[in-house]
């Protein structure tokens, strides 16, 4: 076997990020929490450098490291999104964590390593690399959720997340091993070739796919594997929830695409039915349970579950348009989630979490601008035009209609009407209820600007979604 020098350049962003992680780790180790602003700046810088590198290297692509690593348009776009999202997460979280004395070096180190895991996941082209990235990301997330160690709920959430997450990883690994047993391959492409060309035992192959789908379903939080999600979202400090809810979903999307569509594309008929069940259940259960919530974080958790269902709709369509729609949905979802958890962070202050829906009472009178932003976010999540959320729903439903799964589409849209109710309730509380307590905003102006920009981006994407649609379509063509 000839020794090939791997094309290191394809993994340059990850290597730079790893180097920066180590530097941040060293700084934290030597300065403790005295130089936390420096650590913050360094972390942002690391993400920025990674972002710039990915951006600079866009275009050329291919496989490297013995075909375990891939750089393609999909990985480029997802990496850019992950870096951008995490930069915003760090900016939004700063003040919240500082006030609660949670702003420690560990936070930054864990976030950076987790980001590294996500990038590896996005670029993985082999089951082992995929698993490596997934575990690097997940282990950091478990620790982050439990970071507020004096908080009972946060510890409980961390514990739950860890146990169920480990179970999910186990399922995924088991599925991978079955697939390996059948095909004798670990590489995504090699598996796809084996499935296409060889006479394989379909029963065992299907069994493997079942476990893979369960594992993916766990990571996404699709019903019936969603139990961890509301508890983690509610229990973790809001800043951590923000992190858990946004970028990891983008990475999970990569997991889904790499395993199911790139690796098992020919087995569409097998996994489509499973995804239909997951998607429909997620949309139904997520929307129905969200109605009963009084805690905004928990409500958003259930709304996430329903969004996951919609995202799966795009994938199960099995068409290129469907994958593009799912990608669009993922990116828009990350944008909206950032905005809505950002809004909770904006309103919370020392000794006040602003995580109950009631805490938004009268915001329309006190801070009309921020109330308007929250209104736009809620309508976007409900899928009302002219906001980005509408096009996300439109494109996945269009993909589903195009492959003649009309019944699924009808269930999805009817449930989105039910879903509209709980988003409207937030709007109602902000605008229609009279003021009781005055919600004060103590957040920094820069965060207010960033958050407004974030929301206006959702509005802008709603008015001119063409470019992003074209980009998503190009990736899967």
């Amino acid at each position, binding site marked *: 076997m000839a020794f090939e020098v791997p094309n290191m350049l394809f993994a340059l962003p990850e290597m730079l990020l790893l180097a920066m992680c180590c530097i941040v780790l060293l700084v934290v180790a030597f300065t403790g929490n005295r130089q936390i602003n420096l650590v913050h700046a360094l972390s942002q810088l690391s993400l920025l450098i990674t972002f710039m590198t990915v951006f600079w290297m866009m275009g050329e692509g291919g496989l490297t490291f013995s075909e375990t690593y891939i750089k393609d348009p999909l990985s480029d776009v997802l990496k850019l999104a992950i870096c951008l999202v995490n930069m915003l997460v760090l900016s939004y979280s700063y003040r919240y964590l500082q006030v609660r004395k949670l702003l420690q070096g560990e936070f930054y180190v864990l976030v950076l390593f987790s980001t590294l895991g996500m990038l590896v996941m996005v670029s993985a082209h082999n089951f082992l690399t995929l698993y490596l990235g997934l575990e690097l990301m997940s282990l950091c997330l478990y620790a982050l959720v439990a970071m507020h160690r004096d908080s009972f709920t946060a510890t409980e959430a961390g514990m739950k997340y860890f146990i169920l997450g480990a179970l999910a990883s186990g399922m995924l690994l088991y599925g991978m091993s079955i697939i390996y047993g059948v095909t004798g391959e670990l590489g995504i492409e090699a598996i796809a070739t084996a499935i296409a060309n060889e006479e394989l035992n379909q029963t065992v192959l299907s069994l493997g796919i079942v476990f893979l789908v369960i594992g993916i379903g766990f990571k996404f939080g699709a019903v019936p594997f969603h139990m961890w999600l509301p508890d983690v979202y509610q229990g973790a400090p809001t800043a951590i929830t923000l992190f858990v809810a946004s970028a990891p979903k983008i990475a999970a999307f990569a997991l889904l695409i790499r395993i199911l569509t790139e690796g098992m594309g020919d087995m569409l008929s097998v996994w489509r039915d499973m995804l239909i069940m997951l998607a429909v259940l997620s949309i139904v259960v997520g929307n129905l349970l969200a109605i009963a919530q009084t805690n905004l974080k928990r409500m958003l958790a259930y709304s996430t579950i329903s969004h996951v269902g919609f995202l799966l709709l795009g994938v199960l369509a099995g068409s290129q348009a469907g994958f593009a729609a799912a990608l669009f949905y993922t990116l828009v979802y990350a944008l909206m989630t950032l905005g809505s958890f950002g809004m909770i962070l904006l309103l919370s202050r020392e000794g006040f979490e602003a995580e109950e829906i009631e805490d938004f009472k009268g915001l*329309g009178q006190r801070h009309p601008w921020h109330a308007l932003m929250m209104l736009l976010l809620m309508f976007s999540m409900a899928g*009302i035009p*002219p906001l980005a959320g*509408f096009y996300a729903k439109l494109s996945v439903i269009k993909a589903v*209609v195009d492959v003649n799964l009309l019944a699924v589409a009808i269930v999805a849209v009817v449930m989105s009407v039910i879903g*509209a109710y709980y988003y409207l309730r937030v709007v*109602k509380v902000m605008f*229609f209820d009279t003021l009781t307590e005055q919600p004060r905003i103590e957040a920094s102006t820069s965060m207010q600007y960033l958050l407004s920009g974030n929301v206006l981006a959702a509005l802008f994407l709603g008015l001119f979604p063409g470019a992003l*649609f*074209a980009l998503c379509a190009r990736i899967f063509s």
Partner: protein
Amino acid sequence: MMDFPLLSILILLPIIGGGLLLLCKQNHLLARQLALIVSVVTMLLSFLLYIGFDSTTHQMQFVERLSWIATFNIEYYLGVDGFSMPLMILTTISTVLVVIAGWQVIQDRAAQYMAAFLIMEGLMLGVFAALDAILFYLFFEAMLIPLFLVIGIWGGPNRVYATIKFFLYTFFGSVFLLIALLYLQFQAGSFSILDFHDVSLTLTQQIWIFLAFLIAFAVKIPMWPVHTWLPDAHVEAPTGGSVILAAITLKIGGYGLLRFALPITPDASMTLDWLVIGLSLIAIVYIGFVALAQSDLKKLIAYSSIAHMGFVTLGLFIVFRITANEAITIGIGNGQVLAIEGAMVQMISHGFIAAAMFLSVGVLYDRMHTREISAYGGVANSMPKFTALAVFFAMANAGLPGTSGFVGEFMVILAAFQANFWYAFLAATTLILGAAYTLWMVKRVFFGEIANDEVAKLQDINSREMLLLASLAVIVLVIGIWPDPLLNVMHASVDNLLLQITQSKL
């Protein structure tokens, strides 16, 4: 004319104006003046549509067509024909009235109130001008947001219930529209509504699509039995909200049937015309009786709106029965034209009359803060000028010849005779029922003994209110006596529509 993007300006001007209004938070006077200027300019610009309109063709005019979302072949495609143009002018006039009506009454967050109405105006104009299905849907849905806020923020005591009910009802209807549009795009290969008109569909496909359209638009119109949101929304909405609801949003339902259901699914419309005709007749007769029983002024007018909109749907769908009766004579008879034009005139006329009725109730409510009929009595003694106008509008509502209310109803009833005697008979009962509930209301509110001290102390209308009501009275009278200017612009479009719906797609 082609180079001047009149439709885009009509849509964008109020929306941008509304955005600017949001900036002048505390300065109520400035906000009001700005709102008035924007709405008046928009209205004047919309008159250019009428002046520049070529009534000899059914082709879309003032067309603007740009690629918008290339991946899905969604376009920014605007244009008007004889159906949409009058409705757009109705929209711009109503908005001016709403701005004037809210001048003094709205003291709480006036700038946002005006802004909501201006943004809504732009979106409603967009609904009428859009020729791309997704663009239509976008305006159709986005319109709900400002109306939701208007009812929820400035409404009455039970406003939250009413506005959420309103939102969920209409949203529920419109998601089926979305599915139907996506399915049609799948068949036609583009989102252009005009391409949808030409796509061939089997009867089964047509029936499903038609039902989706019917659900979406029946909720908006609203038709019995999905009308229950309307009385709640009307009662709780501020006067301006009621005016816009009655004058325009209901018309969007009728317009949707004209633009989508009839031309895209003619065979399904024919197969299921009994359903729509039946529901329309129920609306006319049963809701007429319901209106008779109301003790709340706004509820009474709301129910009367549902009954009047029954004429619109009746007019649109008796066409198929007339065609069947005239099977021997090939071509388009007088009866079909009468039916469709009657429905259109009824929409426009009801827009003005309902607006006037709600403004009149607003005048009373601002003074007495109650809408209960029993709280009034003998208002004519203290408010003679107002009573004269209000009684005139009540007469118009009951379909008095010489007012616009008569023209549309009469045309539809006349056409109904060519379809089936009993349709016409049942529809004609509205002349009695309408007169009964309206005039009885007039008797109880305006005439008789002065009911209490508060009524005795009522101030007659000021010049602002006089201007509002008098201008509406003039419009109602003009359309009633001389409807030709309105009818002429729609002849070509009506003929074209009849051509489309009498040719089977199968």
